[in-house]
């Protein structure tokens, strides 16, 4: 990891020669230093971050990094080091041109502001290791991300940290966390996190004992507690904490980073790893859980949304627009909780509620703006409706348009009578023609650039006549390690942020959508899975999160069921596919383990097994797997592996009871019904073949099959009936084979 020496002090403008000063600095004990990580190596803010770094995106019309710097200044930080990755020129330029932060300026509250560029850094870990080599950190320092919005005073935390460090040299880091209230219902900031961090904390000392991350898409919905935890008299597992990304570190922390070269993320890798190896390194990490004050990171678009609203509602006080923290601002509060800057024109009958409007913007007559942020020099036409949206500088919105819950970047033009639906992300300079309604289906990302940063071919069907821009498709290939696309989040979750969470709108329903889709099969959604799909995609804010584990018990049960289903099906199908062995015991063991872990019900087990075997059988019908005849396919699916038949009989059917056998047959039918790419006729044939196969293998008895035949649920829909009809031959054969017993049932069935 050879680190390039970066342009120091805003391209050498420092006047102070930094190199010789270094040695002296090491001895300056009482100077508070801070390190800002101005690149997160994520692409959650795409397409906006294609052109600008995240820390310069405006949040309530102020670049996010302003909040971070102001926070540091308010805590008396003297030396600031800014680590830049992507767009480092932009960040440097911003700081250099800022009248307040450029450290040549007499009014800069910091004694020094240094930029450090690491040319080949691919993660935060690289930054930290570079920092360790530079030897510029003399004592305790504050490590923050460049997207922190906070108003907390750190003095207490610093004092406590210092006291701990003096008592024990191994106490090397204090993390500032904020609770979102336990058991008080869902919290919007907690929902917006995306990933739920779980801190295992010793409540009396605040020592962090273990750190895990949970997210709704992971395979296991649990994590393992370290056995050594139980040596502590008490500990708490807290998933309600918001990680503010503010760490108070001693220089030892940097050494820890340097010790292992594979740590990339400060929490998931570093904290988790170091805590796990506590026996080896002996380092202690502490948490400072603050219930007063505000702190949060705009770590994704939903957090951006959440923090913007918090700013409007003054939770971030004094960092609110009418404090005019930034130099050339002149906001003042007007009626209805809004803040407007000088030169704003609101024409007659224009209504502005709980919004922020920047200088020289014009709001036309009859227009309603609510809970939104509008940048400078925007022109909003007549009779426009803007709700919950973030519109950056110089945007133009034509008459009679509507914009709902979207982000419109700088210089976006929206024509007259257009409709921008929930969750749209429209990047710089895009032009939407007149009378265009963007489709509501999923997140609309429209940009002038493609994912590789080239300019995109305008897609007239999207942006309308006279428009400019095209759909932006996120790179979702997590193996693609190109410079910025280096996200360490679980790949599935990252995809989900792209596709279903509507960018801004990571509502419970979209989460559930993913949970039920799980990995790669969409064919296994039982009717019950469909029931927690969003009923109304518009009622976004009232919905609760189902993954914050504070929901109703029913939803939680449905969730575990669903997770169990996906994992179980996957496991069995894999075992059936395996060509090098004919052993099924492993899969069976795994299945039973899953079942215990999730406390799955009999019916969900039955469903999972039916789906798994149906999938395997239908797979064998397809050309790439040999295009077997249905009979052959059914036989192959059941008997190719030792023990599979026994497994079905014992676990899938679960007994000799006629009702249970009928249930299993019904599950098979439903699974076939839901299998994609299999038309009803063929599905019916396959079902008949499978039932016959199971009959001949003594798994199902004729009573069971006939009971299924008579079951009303088997003929609920036309497709189901179609599948069922194909089995008539089999059923009749069964009836004939045993005429005396089947007499009564025959009458029922017709």
């Amino acid at each position, binding site marked *: 990891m050879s680190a390039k020496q970066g342009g120091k002090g805003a391209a050498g403008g420092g006047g102070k020669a930094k190199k010789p000063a270094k040695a002296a600095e090491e001895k300056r004990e009482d100077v508070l230093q801070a390190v800002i990580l101005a690149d997160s190596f994520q692409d959650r803010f795409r397409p906006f971050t294609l052109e600008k770094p995240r820390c310069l995106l405006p949040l309530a019309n102020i670049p996010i990094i302003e909040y971070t710097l102001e926070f540091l200044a308010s805590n008396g930080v003297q030396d600031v080091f800014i680590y830049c990755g992507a767009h480092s020129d932009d960040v440097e330029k911003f700081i250099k041109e800022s009248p307040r932060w450029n450290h040549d300026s*007499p009014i800069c509250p910091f004694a020094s502001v240094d930029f450090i560029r690491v040319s080949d850094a691919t993660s935060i870990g690289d930054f930290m290791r570079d920092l360790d080599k530079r030897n510029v950190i003399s004592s305790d320092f504050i490590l923050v991300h460049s997207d922190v919005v906070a108003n907390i005073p750190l003095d207490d935390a610093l004092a406590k940290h*210092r006291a701990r460090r*003096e008592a024990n040299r191994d106490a090397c880091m204090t993390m500032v966390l904020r609770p979102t209230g336990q058991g008080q219902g869902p919290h919007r900031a907690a929902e917006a996190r995306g990933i739920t961090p779980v801190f295992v904390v010793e409540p009396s000392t605040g020592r962090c004992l273990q750190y895990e991350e949970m997210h709704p898409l992971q395979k296991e919905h649990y994590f393992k507690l370290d056995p050594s935890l139980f040596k502590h008299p008490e500990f708490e597992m807290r998933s309600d904490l918001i990680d503010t990304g503010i760490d108070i570190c001693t220089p030892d922390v940097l050494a820890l980073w340097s010790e292992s070269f594979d740590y990339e993320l400060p929490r998931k890798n570093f904290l988790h790893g170091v805590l796990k190896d506590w026996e080896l390194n002996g380092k202690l990490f502490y948490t400072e859980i603050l219930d007063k004050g505000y702190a949060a990171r705009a770590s994704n678009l939903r957090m951006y949304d959440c923090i913007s609203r918090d700013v409007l509602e003054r*939770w971030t006080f004094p960092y609110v627009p009418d404090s005019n923290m930034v130099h050339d601002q002149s906001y003042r509060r007007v009626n209805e909780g809004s803040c407007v800057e000088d030169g704003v024109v609101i024409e007659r009958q224009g209504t502005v509620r709980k919004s922020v409007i920047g200088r020289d913007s014009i709001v036309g007559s009859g227009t309603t703006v609510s809970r939104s942020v509008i940048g400078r020099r925007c022109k909003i036409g007549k009779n426009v409706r803007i709700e919950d949206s973030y519109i950056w500088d110089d945007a133009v919105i034509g008459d009679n348009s509507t914009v709902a819950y979207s982000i419109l970047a700088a210089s976006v033009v929206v024509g007259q009578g257009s409709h921008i639906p929930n969750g749209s992300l429209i990047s710089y300079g895009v032009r939407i023609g007149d009378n265009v309604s963007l489709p509501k289906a999923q997140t609309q990302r429209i940009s002038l650039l493609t994912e590789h940063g080239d300019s995109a071919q305008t897609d007239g069907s999207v942006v309308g006549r006279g428009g400019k821009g095209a759909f932006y498709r996120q790179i979702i290939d997590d193996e693609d390690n190109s410079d910025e696309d280096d996200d360490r989040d679980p790949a599935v979750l990252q995809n989900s942020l792209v596709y279903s969470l509507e960018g801004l709108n990571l509502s419970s329903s979209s989460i559930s959508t993913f949970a039920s889709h799980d990995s790669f099969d969409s064919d296994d959604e039982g009717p019950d899975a469909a029931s927690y799909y969003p009923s109304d995609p518009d009622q976004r804010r009232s919905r609760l999160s189902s993954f914050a584990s504070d929901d109703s018990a029913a939803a939680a049960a449905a969730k575990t069921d669903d997770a169990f289903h996906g994992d179980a099906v996957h496991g069995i199908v894999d075992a059936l596919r395996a060509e090098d062995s004919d052993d099924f015991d492993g899969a069976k063991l795994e299945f039973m383990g899953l079942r215990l872990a999730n406390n799955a019900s009999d019916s969900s087990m039955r469903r999972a097994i039916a789906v798994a075997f149906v999938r395997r059988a239908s797979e064998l019908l397809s050309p790439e797997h040999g295009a077997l005849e249905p009979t052959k396919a059914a036989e192959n699916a059941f008997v190719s592996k030792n023990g599979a038949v026994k497994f079905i009989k014992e676990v899938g059917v679960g007994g000799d009871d006629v009702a249970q056998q009928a249930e299993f047959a019904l599950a098979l039918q439903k699974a076939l019904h839901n299998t994609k790419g299999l038309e009803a006729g063929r599905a019916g044939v396959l079902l008949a073949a499978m039932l016959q196969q199971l009959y001949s293998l003594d798994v199902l008895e004729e009573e069971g099959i006939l009971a299924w035949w008579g079951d009303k649920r088997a003929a609920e829909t036309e497709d189901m009936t179609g599948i069922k009809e194909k089995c008539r031959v089999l059923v009749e054969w069964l009836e004939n084979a045993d005429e005396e017993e089947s007499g009564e049932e025959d009458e029922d069935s017709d």
Partner: protein
Amino acid sequence: MAPSQAAYAPSLEKLLKSLKSKSLEASIEDLIFLLKRRQVSGDECANATAHMLLQVVARSKWHDVDQLLSRIQSTGSRLAQAAPHEPVIGNIVRRVLGLIRDEASEDRNADEFMSESVSDLQSLPPSAPSHTRPTGATPVRPALVPTATSLAVSKSMFNLLSAAETADSPMTGASTPISQAQPTSAHALRSEVIDGIEEIMDEISQADDQIAGFADIQVHPGDFILAMLPSPAVERFLLKAAAKRRFTALLASNGSYISAVGEAPYAALRKKLNAAGVNTVNLASNGLLAYMPRANKVIFGAKAVYQSGGLLVDSACCIAARAAQEYSKPVIVLSGVYKFCPFDPSEEVSKVDLGNPMTYVSYGDGPAVDALEVENAVAEYLPPELVDVYLTNLGPQTRDHLGSIISDHYKPEDMGLSLLINEA
């Protein structure tokens, strides 16, 4: 390793300590951001402003009075702009401006006395406005600016004739291009103004004590004194009264009082009062009205007193004053004279600061955060008719006399300061 135990967060105290090592501009900017971040607020503002203006006088380069005045004005309006919710800042700026004008005219008079070339015409116009009584006459403010300019014009015309002699006339408009400013007079003026500002600082720091000096007149034995949100001034007043009188103090807090861990509101004050033999009763916001019939007097501190007699007070004082009026109990407001604002509150009322909703609702309370819009007004306007006595460091006053106090302390030229804010 011997880390300093000092806190890192900037504060007024630290700023004042570091004044010498920093450039003037950096200090001003530091104070502006301390104000914006509310790390300096309330009664500290007056002191901070005076300190900063003292620095401006002492350290900035100026050659004549006009330069000094404009520097003070620009710095002052920057400070006032940084905290529009603290009218006291503007008051101090006005006081300092008035002080400079006084010193300058004294100088000039002295000079005129010595030099024989006295132009009566010259001395008249500048002093004329200061003799007019602006009390209660609000339109004075806009009218004054033109007066000043016409004055400048007329003066420069005189200068045409009486060239060198007017060089020492510090009240000239900026138009006269006279470079041979007199270093001696500037030097003398500097030290005089610095002395004057120090006097103002003394006044600010002693105001609370002086107010407390009137305690035994206001508090009678056996009284029930209801102190709403006891400010430091009120605390001092009560303690002073406790030294001489036996009475009962009802200490009322609004719901937002957050104390150190586990302590009842105003515990320190209660301990001191009890030690002095005064019974105390703590009232939560609900209990206030129930105790009102029992109380003899209601006392609270003001953040600012307007020309009309209206007040800017901590929120919740208003309800106490209204209740007192219902029960015909006298309301006594404690306010140093430096808090008297020479203007009416019309535009100021809308500038009342909205604080952090966290005072009332925890941000951790998810459903509440989503469902509620919490407006935490940290201050509110109290109409003049609810106040009976204004207890200042100059003694108890009634509403009718506020005007004369204001005209004693401010120069009419400076009353329009708030209008100049945007020029900064």
